[in-house]
């Protein structure tokens, strides 16, 4: 009996394959829910203590990061393990401009995103020719290399000792946003990233990315300019990540290369997307929220062992739900098979 094993099928968001009448309803519900969620988060702010506000801001930050990674890693299927390079590039562009050239934060926010996007296009052209592990490691190499470069350009970036953005006094170019301000800004970035993800997912471009993900050779034969699409996706993901990096740099005010180019940030992004469900819009959102909560909870209650437990959780999650929570639920509802045990067998040898 013919039939491909479930292992090979990567279930993605359904495109408008349903008849027009029905799809209108299904189309607008997610946007509506998204707006409600946004309003809820705005309202939440007044209910939170300072510490909680910072925690939630961090969650928003990771939502945006996860959504950004999802564009290249989830939709297109090119697992970038150097995504933090955009984060650091955005952060340092803003920091250097604000500290040495007296620039205001707001234009720099946009410019940092653009710089990161351009960098993405630049390295994307040679690197996106690589596949699988090669691409993952090449991007990792770029990120690590960039960290070293930044560490060495001491005059510009302060090198290993870091750079401090002036936030008070005469030298400060922009009023420091404070906890409340950053909460809103990160929320805005999170909303923006979800918007971008949603738009890409539902339009012609996203369709091309998914085709490339599922069979790049066939996609090329059918008229998709795979080079252009991949580079565009990579640039876009770099743009989103760069915006977040710029905001983070301003928030922290004191930044170091080890932090802004920390490989653990990339890994967190990847874990969030994979556990939540790669290639979906809801997945990265869910994954970011859950994992950040978990990470914060562990950090506060098991300070010494929290990384250990995090590692164990990652292992368990990856084994039980390799396709991510959202994809698992969608498939289970479609096939009626909710067995986790069967899910574990999905990818086993």
């Amino acid at each position, binding site marked *: 009996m013919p039939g491909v094993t479930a292992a090979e099928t990567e279930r993605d968001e359904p495109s408008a394959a349903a008849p027009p009448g029905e799809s209108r309803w299904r189309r607008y519900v997610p946007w509506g829910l998204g707006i409600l969620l946004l309003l809820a988060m705005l309202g939440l702010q007044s209910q939170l203590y300072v510490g909680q506000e910072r925690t939630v801001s961090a969650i928003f930050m990771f939502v945006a990061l996860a959504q950004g990674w999802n564009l290249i890693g989830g939709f297109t299927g090119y697992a970038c393990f150097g995504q933090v390079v955009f984060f650091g590039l955005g952060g340092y562009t803003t920091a250097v401009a604000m500290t040495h050239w007296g620039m205001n934060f707001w234009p720099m926010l946009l410019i940092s995103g653009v710089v990161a996007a351009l960098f993405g296009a630049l390295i994307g052209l040679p690197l996106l020719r690589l596949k699988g592990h090669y691409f993952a490691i090449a991007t990792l190499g770029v990120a690590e290399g960039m960290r070293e470069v930044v560490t060495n350009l001491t005059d510009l970036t302060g090198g290993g000792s870091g750079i401090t953005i002036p936030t008070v006094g005469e030298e400060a170019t922009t009023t420091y946003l404070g906890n409340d301000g950053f909460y809103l800004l990160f929320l805005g970035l999170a909303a923006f990233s979800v918007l971008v993800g949603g738009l890409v997912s539902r339009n012609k471009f996203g369709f*091309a990315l998914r085709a490339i993900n599922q069979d790049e050779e066939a996609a090329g034969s059918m008229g998709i300019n795979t080079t252009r699409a991949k580079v565009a996706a990579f640039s876009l993901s770099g743009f989103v990540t760069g915006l977040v990096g710029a905001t983070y740099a301003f928030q922290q005010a004191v930044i170091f290369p080890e932090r802004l180019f920390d490989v653990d940030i990339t890994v967190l992004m990847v874990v969030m997307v994979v556990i939540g469900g790669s290639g979906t819009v809801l997945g990265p959102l869910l994954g970011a929220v859950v994992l950040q909560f978990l990470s914060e909870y562990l950090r506060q209650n098991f300070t010494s062992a929290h990384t250990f437990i995090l590692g164990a959780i990652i292992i368990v999650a990856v084994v039980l739900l390799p396709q991510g929570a959202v994809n698992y639920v969608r498939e289970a509802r479609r096939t009626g098979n909710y067995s986790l045990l069967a899910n574990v067998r999905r990818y086993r040898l």
Partner: protein
Amino acid sequence: MSAALLETRGLGRRFGGLQAVSDVSFSVPAGQVLGVIGPNGAGKSTFINLVTGHIKPTTGKVLIDGKDMTGARPWAIAHAGVARTFQIVKPFRGMTVRENVAVGVLYGPSDQNRMSTALTRADEVLEEVGIAHLGARPPGELSVADARRLEFAKALSLNPKLLLLDEVMAGLRHSEIEPSLELIRSLKERGLAVIVVEHVMKAILAVSDQVLVFHQGEVLTSGDSRTVLSDPRVIEAYLGQRYAKRREGGGDA
């Protein structure tokens, strides 16, 4: 000289020490079906890949509709009006059959931008190949014959002027071959040029206007099907004496 849709001149490809395809020159005009036969490893698939831009030639030229498209990328070739099927079918496994075909409508020469229009057009193409009823299924659930039809439909979604079919009949039952032949005939009538790479001689005989024989990367001979299939060199290199005797005895097996 009638305008050839596809013309190759001295086309060749080398892999390290192996000359996989060597000095292939021929042309196919519109409304003609060219059969391509030859033993395995003779270079037929490499040849197709050279035409469709999946591999770059080391020598020679590929001209499509008179325009030099040597070494062009596969999407440029698709936009020039050339479509192909893959020997081992390559559907987009995460999409429905209908969406698979819609990709070509959206990104091929018709460059459709509206999803709904693309899906409607996809349904039309599926109707043409006979699997419209399977539109909502995932490709993984299709039988071999239907999966081949999906490959066909994906190629047709590009509104091609030239169609390259890479062993579409392999493994099909006799009852499944005839509809495919019908389809090829109807495409020919519409003015497409079709190149059919096959091992199933019955199919080659049934639809080809000309036949090209590949052997060890080179064109051994070419001509109309009956002549070529009776050529002693072709029998020696590929068909075998038993087949030749069977044909002499009558009927076309």
